[in-house]
């Protein structure tokens, strides 16, 4: 879902850049105020974690494999603003080191996978988990649904941006992207739930930290 340069027109790239830059700026202030300077190594190392976790491929039907996106996972574990910071750093480094996602399209990628992915993931998780009273099953179900929803929402915004830029026709591209990512999202959800079930067993206290 990392959009390369050349797929978006300048208006779309510029407007998503502005939204993402505003979001990251606010996240920096918010996280810095609530966590103090402690957040600098924490966010950095968590960013490296998401980066490394994306190297763990999981099998999808038909011999293909996918890898974790991590937006919902970061948001559930650390909170939406911290998650946004983590994802923005990951996307920036991926663009610069691997050319995975373009420089001019970075704003759009941060918007899709950072802003949309983290906030959808976080609030879906909180909503579903509180309905199920934060039981073990509830937390796992909620994290699965949240991760699936985050991937879906990010892919829908990706399709919208491509359509606004005139790169693909909305009527066909939107259902195709959403349908494809509905499948990918199952893998994302399963891995996210498995990570949470591991954290629940080993360090439950981390899930009860104040989320920012």
């Amino acid at each position, binding site marked *: 879902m990392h*959009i*390369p*340069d*050349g*797929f978006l027109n300048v208006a779309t*790239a510029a407007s998503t850049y502005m939204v993402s830059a505003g979001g990251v700026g606010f996240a*920096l202030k918010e996280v*810095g105020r609530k966590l103090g*300077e*402690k*957040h*600098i*190594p*924490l*966010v*950095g*190392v*968590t*960013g*490296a*974690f998401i*980066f*490394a*976790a994306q*190297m*763990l491929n*999981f*099998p999808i039907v038909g*011999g293909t494999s996918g890898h974790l996106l991590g937006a919902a*996972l970061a948001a559930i*574990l650390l909170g939406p603003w911290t998650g946004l*910071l983590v994802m*923005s*750093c990951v996307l*920036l*480094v991926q663009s*610069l*080191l*691997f*050319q*995975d996602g*373009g*420089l*001019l399209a970075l704003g759009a990628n941060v918007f899709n996978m950072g802003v949309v992915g983290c906030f959808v993931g976080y609030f879906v998780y909180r909503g579903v988990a509180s309905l199920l009273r934060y039981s073990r099953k509830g937390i796992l179900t909620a994290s699965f649904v949240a991760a699936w929803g985050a991937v879906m929402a990010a892919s829908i915004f990706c399709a919208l941006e*491509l359509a606004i830029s005139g*790169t*693909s*026709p909305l*009527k*066909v*591209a939107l259902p*195709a992207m959403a349908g494809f990512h509905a499948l990918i999202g199952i893998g994302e959800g*399963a*891995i996210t739930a*498995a990570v949470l079930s*591991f*954290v629940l067993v*080993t*360090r439950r206290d*981390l899930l009860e930290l104040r989320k920012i």
Partner: protein
Amino acid sequence: MRHSFLDKYSQLHSPIHHLDPRVKLALSFAFILGVVTTPPTLWPAFVLYLILLWCLILISRLPPLFVLVRSLIIIPFVVVVAVFVPFFSGGGVAGSYSLGPWQVTVSHHGLMVLWNVVVKAWLSVQALILLSSTTRLPDLLRGMQGLGMPRVLIMILSFMYRYLFVLIDEVMRMRQARDSRNFGGKRLWQWKTIGSMAGSLFLRSYERGERVYMSMMARGFDGQVRSLRRLQLSYAEVCLGVACLFLVVAVNVVPRFAFPM
């Protein structure tokens, strides 16, 4: 463990490698912006962009094959766009094919969209490869700070870059341990194992982050990182930067008048 796939060619020596990172960043951004704003029908401009870019790539002594192979990373997205080409209508029919039961009609407009995307994405990704293979990431970050990115974000990114290698090592060791215990094939139950691996990776990273913070505190960390290396912009670098910028703008503007369509 080896991570030679990261930052492989950024240690070479060439005029481009030694150029100030701020100049390189600003020029790459300007180049990509120039490519994206060029109308797709103006093909002479794209040829000129390609010549300009490859002059720089040859000066930088990057292996040409490496740049070409690396630029294939855009293919998945190009395929996605190519699949949707038959669904564009308008601009007259360019060709009609029957694929089994379906009659596929490709319009001129659809082909133009595909050409537009392929040429722009290909040029931009090569510019990005040139930038990132001639500059070490810490230098790029310093350049970004020089161009006005918030200091805290730069520090987070530096931390991330520092621990990236440690955690990639950790993943490689975990994978080795897993594979030596007969983890073959592709089955659905593997998801549970991969989830536990990611979970323990998270715990190790989180606890490492805490330890790093505490040892930084013990050494008197006050939120400031002091570096001995300073960026210095020489007169020649500024001139070179302005000259390249002028070329990009010229390639963007002049062909519109030279080849009116």
